[in-house]
């Protein structure tokens, strides 16, 4: 009887220790845990001031950490669903002991918000962009900041409750002139965001920023996830926003 009590207590202690170890392992930042020892990581984009982006040079694999042996989460691609040049915003660089440099990128796809690492040689030269576009779903307003100040602000329409506009950090992927589609207005911006509820949509459900033929619905929540503006507003924004500009949807 006494021996079984002692055994039970031991098992409880062992279980508790295992649970604590598991909790500690889960709480540790995975990137840090997987970053090669000695790597020097430098942030290259702050997503509100100066940021950098690049076109891919190869269809390189995207890894979960800056190592060729790390888990592969996808690969770079050259063309978007609208057959425009895909680009990637660079978040950080990691210089390894070996001298190789890896770049952490925002990796568009579902779920939104993925990041991954590619060798520096997988990307072409960096382009610099200043500022970011803030999309506030509560105030239904989009504001473009540059040099620390707002240079553009306009009311917007966002997704309905059933097809909500996703929140998070994204960027301007493409600048388009719309043809034969008054519903999109005269100009459109493709983003790196994907609508969470419309996976079967042609093109994969990319969230765009575009004009509209129903300006009376702006500001409001009439869309399938896209961000709609009055045609005059998207025309102005299209003219002043740069490719690769970070977008923050709150």
């Amino acid at each position, binding site marked *: 009887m006494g021996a079984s009590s002692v055994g039970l207590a031991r098992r409880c202690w062992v279980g508790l220790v295992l649970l604590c170890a598991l909790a500690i392992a889960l709480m540790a930042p995975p990137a840090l845990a997987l970053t090669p020892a000695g790597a020097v990581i430098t942030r290259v984009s702050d997503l509100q001031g100066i940021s950098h982006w690049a*076109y891919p*040079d*190869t269809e390189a694999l995207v890894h979960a950490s800056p190592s060729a042996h790390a888990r592969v989460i996808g690969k770079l691609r*050259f*063309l978007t*669903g*609208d*057959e*425009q*040049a895909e*680009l990637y915003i660079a978040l950080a660089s990691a210089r390894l002991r070996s001298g190789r440099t890896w770049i952490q990128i925002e990796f568009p796809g579902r779920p939104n918000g993925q990041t991954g690492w590619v060798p520096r040689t997988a990307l*072409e*030269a960096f382009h610099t962009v200043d500022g970011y576009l803030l999309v506030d779903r509560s105030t239904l307003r989009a504001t473009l900041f540059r040099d620390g100040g707002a240079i*553009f*602000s*306009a009311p917007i329409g966002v997704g309905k409750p059933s*097809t909500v506009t996703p929140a998070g950090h994204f960027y301007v992927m493409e*600048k*388009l*002139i*719309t*043809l*034969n*589609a008054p*519903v*999109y207005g*005269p100009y*459109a911006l*493709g983003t790196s965001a994907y*609508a969470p509820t*419309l996976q079967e*949509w*042609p*093109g*994969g*459900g*990319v*969230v*765009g920023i*575009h004009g509209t033929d129903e300006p009376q619905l702006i500001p409001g929540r009439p*869309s*399938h*996830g*896209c961000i709609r503006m009055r*045609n*005059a*507003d998207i*025309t*102005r924004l299209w003219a002043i926003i740069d490719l690769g500009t970070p977008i923050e949807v709150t």
Partner: protein
Amino acid sequence: MPIRDNGEQQRRMRAQRDLHACGRPGRRLALTRLAALVLLAGLVLAAFMAPTGQARGARHQRSPEEEATIVAATEARQLEREERKQIEREEQAAAKAQREAEIEAARTQRAANKRARSQQGGARRGVQNSSRPRLNGDVEFTCTGVTWNFKEFPEGTNTVITVYKLFGEGSPVILPKTFTFTGSSDEATTPFNAPPGSYNVDAWAKWKGNGLKGSFDILGKLTCGPAPALSVEKLQRIKNGPPTYTTSTLNGEVGDTVEYEIVVTNSGNVPLTLTEFSDPNCEGVSGGPGSAELAPGAKTTYTCTRVLESPGPHLNTAEVQGDPPYGDGNPVSSTSNTVTVETSSLPANPTPAFSIEKLQRIQGGSGSYTTSELTGATIGQTVEYEIVVTNTGNVPLTLGSFSDPKCDGGTVSGGPGSAALPVGASTTYTCAHLLDAADQAAGSYANAVSITGTPPEGGGLPVSNSSNTVVVEVPASSPNGTGSTTGSASSGVLSSTFSEPAKSGVLAFASATLPKLKGPQGCVRHSFHISIKSAGVASVTFYMDGHKLKKLTAKNAHKGLLTIAVNPDKLKVGVHKLVAKITMIATASTKAKQGSRMVRILRCSSKALTPKFTG
């Protein structure tokens, strides 16, 4: 024994006293009745015996005829008085009815005026005082002005002098004005835009002439709140056409440039900061107050232009937002009228033509751009070029095939891009060239730029022109075979050392590594160039997806580069590989090295498409 109160005792004592004074009660009552009868008889007799009022005071007794005459006259006077009173009552009733009709008419007129002003969009606000009706005029105060109603004037021409005073903070605002109208009535308005605040108002009018003289002076109070408002009017004219701007529809031709004026007026009573100016079909927007506030009543003008690139109507509308100071109301926006240019097709005799002028200067020098020869230039200096292209024909032109052997790769900028150059318009390209050993070896060089202008379909054939030739002298100040060429801040394409004199424009590099290919990034949609440094290269053959494009040798080198132009029109959307197979020059110590370089060419769809967004 029962107890009685004092009141009952007193009543019993008074009854005993009466009994003692009058003896029996029946006898006393009889005496009282007798006295009353005597008094009544006397009164009746006096009434019969007394004379009439008219005869009272008469000294003699009248005859019956006289009495009859007097009675008749009295009756006539009474009848006359009654008739007069009846007439007066009727006149009073008529006057009252007239006054009521006038008041009602004035009320109806004011209501009609108010409705009319409301329908005209006239914002009336903050009215704390309504005027009283006047015989010949009335007045209505608002924060946007005073409205005068003149009525019941003689037919013909009437002139009224009015003065409207507004007493608030500071000196009173006085708005004198003279109205002239024809007919018996008219309405006039003295516009005003009162800033927020409370005011005493005094409206005074005077008229004399046309057989009528009169005036009124009406006082009142007015309280006005902040009312931000603005209006936008858009006007247009065809460049090189009639100089007057108009809101009317104009007729233009393809290639014409439309000039627009957008006049923004602060029609409210608080200052506005104009933001979010929008005019989607206009380019080169300038003017406006910038970040400065636009005062109430003030106007500002924006200008912009548009090139008519296709037949059909070209519509333009501008929109402006005005932000009032904090606490003075919400931002307001206004959309202008829409102006239209009906654009006919190309001219009957399309004549595509353009001119090119090339100018140059030494970077960092004190001289300005010139077409003259630059002398005394030295190796390492950079020559900056300005190429001005002017469309001298009568159709717009899309410029292409820009060729200038002395524009270093990557330095060309400016120009209209893919947009058409309007008729009569000019555009400027810039580029630069780093003076190198080859230039010095030649002693001087001369060059010109050539460009092709392509009109729209039906506008004639493409035309090519060359600019004037400019000359740069690079005297041999450094001994041949030594020296260094440093990188140019403008191009960054040359950074090398050389050890022997230049031969045929090819430098023999110490390094025999294969030069890299320089190609476009991102999408290609138009013609582009692929170049490779010619230094040490004997020949290079370019392939696109395995198909041979062109072979170049050292003889084809320009500015140290071997370059081919690639037209991507025949490339499918997607990724393509352009490979350069390179053969290096053999030296005394090395064999002719061979190798290849590759660049990826990304052919994209046009930017103009139907997006695949979720919408």
